[in-house]
């Protein structure tokens, strides 16, 4: 079965892959925050350039990021239409009472570029680490237990639910069902999603029983062996410096 695995390429060997997961999360978060606060298109483009460079260093396949960025772009695209119409500024075209402004275009470009570089960085961060390791790194970084458990169960059971959905779908298709965008199709789809929710409720009950029977008391505990080496400090330090320089270079230069 083909799962949409985010950590499909986590076993590649690259400096980013070998970067300590805890340091990776902190460094990338700093960089993401730095890049989304950049205030001009030029700076934002430099940010996107740096993100792409890290992407090349990480040796991830092209399709991995492009495919996902397409989805992100779909959400961002409306900005290109809405902002030129709604932001005040120098008009570049006018039709009756509707004006299109240059500032609007600039703003929407800025937002889109910043978002793309942030998403690229986030994808590199998640794509270069096995997801269970990412969760453990968050655990080591003292992220609240409830959040860790939610992530853990989501990661574990998303595939089980996908399987369950596909089994139901095949069963329906084998009885001649074809999804059409009409009332009947939607009601069948609704029933199916309802069934999935009931099934996962039952499963949650069984999983809980099996957790209790292994002595679960509410705190996730696990054993992790991470070790920060000199090279981790070096990578983290240089990336954080870049992130800071993007905002403070005019003070230094």
């Amino acid at each position, binding site marked *: 079965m083909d799962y949409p695995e985010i950590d499909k390429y986590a076993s590649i060997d690259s400096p980013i892959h070998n970067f300590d997961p805890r340091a990776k999360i902190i460094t990338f978060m700093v960089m993401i925050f730095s890049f989304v606060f950049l205030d001009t298109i030029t700076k934002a483009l430099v940010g996107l350039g740096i993100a792409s460079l890290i992407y090349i260093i990480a040796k991830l396949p092209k399709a991995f990021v492009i495919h996902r960025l397409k989805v992100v772009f779909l959400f961002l695209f409306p900005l290109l239409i809405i902002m030129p119409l709604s932001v005040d500024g120098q008009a570049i075209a006018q039709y009756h009472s509707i004006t299109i402004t240059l500032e609007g275009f600039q703003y929407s470009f800025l937002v889109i570029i910043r978002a793309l570089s942030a998403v690229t960085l986030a994808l590199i961060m998640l794509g270069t680490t*096995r997801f*269970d390791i990412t969760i*453990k790194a968050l655990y080591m970084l003292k992220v609240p237990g409830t959040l860790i458990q939610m992530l853990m169960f989501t990661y*574990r*059971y998303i595939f089980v639910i996908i399987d369950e959905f596909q089994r139901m779908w095949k069963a329906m298709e084998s009885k001649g069902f074809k999804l059409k965008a009409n009332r009947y199709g939607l009601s069948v789809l609704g029933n199916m999603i309802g069934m999935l929710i009931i099934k996962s409720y039952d499963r949650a009950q069984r999983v809980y*029983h099996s957790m209790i*029977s*292994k*002595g679960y008391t509410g705190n996730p505990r*696990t054993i992790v062996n991470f070790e920060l080496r000199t090279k981790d400090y070096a990578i983290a330090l240089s990336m954080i410096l870049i992130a800071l320089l993007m905002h403070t270079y005019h003070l230094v230069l």
Partner: protein
Amino acid sequence: MKEAIRVKELTYSYPDGTPALEDIDITINEGEKIVIVGPNGAGKTTLFLHLNGTLKSQDNTVMIFGKNLGDMKVEERIKEVGIVFQDPDDQLFMPTIFDDVAFGPINMGLDEEEVKNRVKKALSRVGLEGFEDRVPHNLSYGQKKRAALAAVLSMEPRILILDEPTANLDPKSRADLIQVINDLNKDGITTVIAMHDVNALPLLSDRVYVLNRKIVGEGNPREIFSNSELLKMTHLEAPDVFKMFKVLTCFGYDCDTLPMSIDEAVEFLTRTIESGSGHIHLHLHEHTHEEVRKFLHSYNHH
């Protein structure tokens, strides 16, 4: 001999009031191999959930090695009784196999070295060495089933409870699992198993309880399978070998005890042939077909 499990007058109803278990009395000695059979919805899983305190029962209804289960601490309880449930996807709830197998030992408060040792030991016991970093959704059903067993073995429980361990397995995986369970029992672990797989049952049981909300029968496999009324009432059937030899007796084959497994059948046949004149004698007489028909009818559900 020490009593491992004693259940006395256990009654339980589901939250909506439907009775699930009535007046259950069970005594299981240390080291015994017990199988619990019964139709779908007979309450086997519910009974199991009481045996390690996942479902709470009234005082002194469930005693584990002479101690009231309700008074035991969590760490103590999971050290005594381990349950392997039916669906492995319900039990492998951690991101990797290592985390799953380590889950129980960590909760028992063991130190890191010991936890790692136990994970290693448990995985090699079920033949999954080197699977530590694998994620459950990439495993086959049989592997998941064995991983789920390892996740319980790592707690090194003295009593091992298995719900339908052989269901949905291919014959090889099924045989492997039966072997593992029997090895564990030989090491002194008390095993309690719920199953519908009557052909595997004789291999996994010294004694059988028949459960249908109440305990409706108890005895060794041979006694249970000879009671056709009981089997019919509880939607069960006898192993094929057992029935085959019963049919052979209608043809004049002379044996007082019927074999429960292929191995036993070979042994019995050899013995009969050797004690006779080097062959066995089968024949037809006027009532043979009538007898066979009657026998098969008594074991048939239709």
